[in-house]
């Protein structure tokens, strides 16, 4: 393999790895938000995102209604937020008592949502595209399409917005306080439940956005989105599962690593590769790859 050929291969791989990695990062951010505030690993994250994406499809394609894409997304966001609130209400009685029991309960919620998707939308495979114009241009070996730019713009906007909320608002201060020391917050009279609820809402929105942006690259069925969440989980583990910047960067690292693996090794063993990444990370960087780079900041 010549050096020129290698560079011609590697640059597009890196670029598309960054693009898909952004989405894994957004998915991972939702998981980490919920985990930091309520110490629950939300296994229903992927199923909720899948249901939301199907709602967008159902209301914009004419299978349920023919709304515009924008209003379908608004509706899906509302539904996803409502389901997130209901999920949290369900586990509210045990969320302070047992992390493990709450985590098991989220699995149950995930199963219910999975069944709901199959009941309402069947096991069909459908296409759901973004309403972006179809154009693309090249910089050197890299082809950049409108979709890539849309992903970057949305990711930056949503991550920027999230960090602005966490850094600048009262709610964000409360969220950081609760994720650092819930007991002290309770002593100071902070309502933990409202902070939990905020993080569950944020998780639902982030999951849905990631799902909507990832679906155009593949297709939408009752199983694709939940398995896409494995990438989000891996990104969260790589980032240390309790650091928001870590999750975002972990997503990009996972995206690049997956692209290189599927191009140079074996695309059919993608989940096995992610399993390996998770196990190696847990063994050598139990607090995430970026522990030293970022430190213990929230």
């Amino acid at each position: 393999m010549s050096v020129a050929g290698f560079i011609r291969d590697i640059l597009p791989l890196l670029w598309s790895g960054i693009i898909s990695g952004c989405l894994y990062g957004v998915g991972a951010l939702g998981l980490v938000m919920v985990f930091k505030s309520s110490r629950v690993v939300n296994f229903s994250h992927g199923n909720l995102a899948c249901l939301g994406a199907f709602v967008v499809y159902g209301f914009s394609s004419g299978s349920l209604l023919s709304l515009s894409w924008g209003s379908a997304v608004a509706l899906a966001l509302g539904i996803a937020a409502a389901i997130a609130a209901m999920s949290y209400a369900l586990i509210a009685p045990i969320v302070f008592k047992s992390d493990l029991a709450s985590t098991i309960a989220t699995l149950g919620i995930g199963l219910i949502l999975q069944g709901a998707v199959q009941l309402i939308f069947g096991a069909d495979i459908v296409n759901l595209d973004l309403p972006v114009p179809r154009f693309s241009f090249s910089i050197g070996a890299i082809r950049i399409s409108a979709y890539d730019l849309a992903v970057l713009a949305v990711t930056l906007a949503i991550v920027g917005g999230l960090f602005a909320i966490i850094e600048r608002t009262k709610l964000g201060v409360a969220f950081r306080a609760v994720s650092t020391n819930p007991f002290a917050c309770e002593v100071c009279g902070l309502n933990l439940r409202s902070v939990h609820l905020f993080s569950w809402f944020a998780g639902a929105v982030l999951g849905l956005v990631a799902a909507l942006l990832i679906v155009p690259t593949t297709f939408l069925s009752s199983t694709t989105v939940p398995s896409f969440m494995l990438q989000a989980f891996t990104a969260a583990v790589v980032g240390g599962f309790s650091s928001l910047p870590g999750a975002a960067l972990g997503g990009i690292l996972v995206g690049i690593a997956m692209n290189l693996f599927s191009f140079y090794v074996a695309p059919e063993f993608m989940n096995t590769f992610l399993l390996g990444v998770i196990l190696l990370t847990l063994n050598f960087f139990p607090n995430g790859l970026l522990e030293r780079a970022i430190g213990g900041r929230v």
Partner: protein
Amino acid sequence: MSELAHGSKAAVSARGGNVDAAWLSMLALVAVLSLMPLFAGGFLLYSLSLCFANALGVLSVSMLVRYGGEVSIGHSFFVALGAYAVAIVEHRLGLSIAVSLPLAILLGAGVGFIFAFPSRRLSGIYLAVATMALALALPEILIGFEKFTGGFEGLYIAQDLVPGVSKALQRYYVALVVLVVVCLALMHFRRSAQGLALLMAQAQPRAAEAMGITRSWARVSIFTVSAALASLAGALTGFASSTVSPNSFTFFSGVFLLVGSVVSLNRLSLPAALVGGAFITLVPTYLAKAGDWVPIFYGVALVVVTLVANAGDLRRFLPRRRR
């Protein structure tokens, strides 16, 4: 979970003198199950054999919850390991489960150890995430190593353990005997020094460390034993159903094992294991028409049982006071 640790004294004192009701009911249950083939038809027997195998899988998950305080949704991986071990040993070496059953246990233990080792120092939540990856990686591994596993088609298991006995009876009794033996072994383990040490490592990590058992060692060893049990369950599943294929080891099979464990309240007794095994074996069989309702049904069961088992007094959540 810790009532297990506190209940030991009562259990020990109850063993003195009188044969207690639990023993009698277990003996009665085993007797009824042993005589079942005299009355039951072929399909019910087949379902029951699978039910025993699944009950063992449920036990392996329950053991992890009870002793390690950890949750696994990827135990289908170890179940598949055992099932495929039986199939591959028969195909490549032409040997029956007399050889492959012990081999499956060893394989499960080995792979379980390797898998649990990286997350030994971390909270159970990391292990849960890793098991999710395990469950999702399983189908592509089974399909990817087509040369050994038969790919989508899977493999047939035809060899008998005891020549000359009818297949249905063999499947039934092998599964039943192994299940009962494992239940007895677990009862013994609960009272053994090793079992108590592992319980102590979970309930009082500091105290256990003073006695020389670290929490991380306890974690890894429990997962190893649990994976070995799951692999044994898989060997029985393969033997009972005479075939292994990737269809029976999807992501959901691992989740369903956990559902069975939760529904049986993570108990390690024979009746509890049978309840859990029956729940995940018979529901899909008898609700086959309502295919899409099965995950919903399981999900509701999971949420409701978890809530009821953990919430304690729900009146605390009426407005006015929290916690």
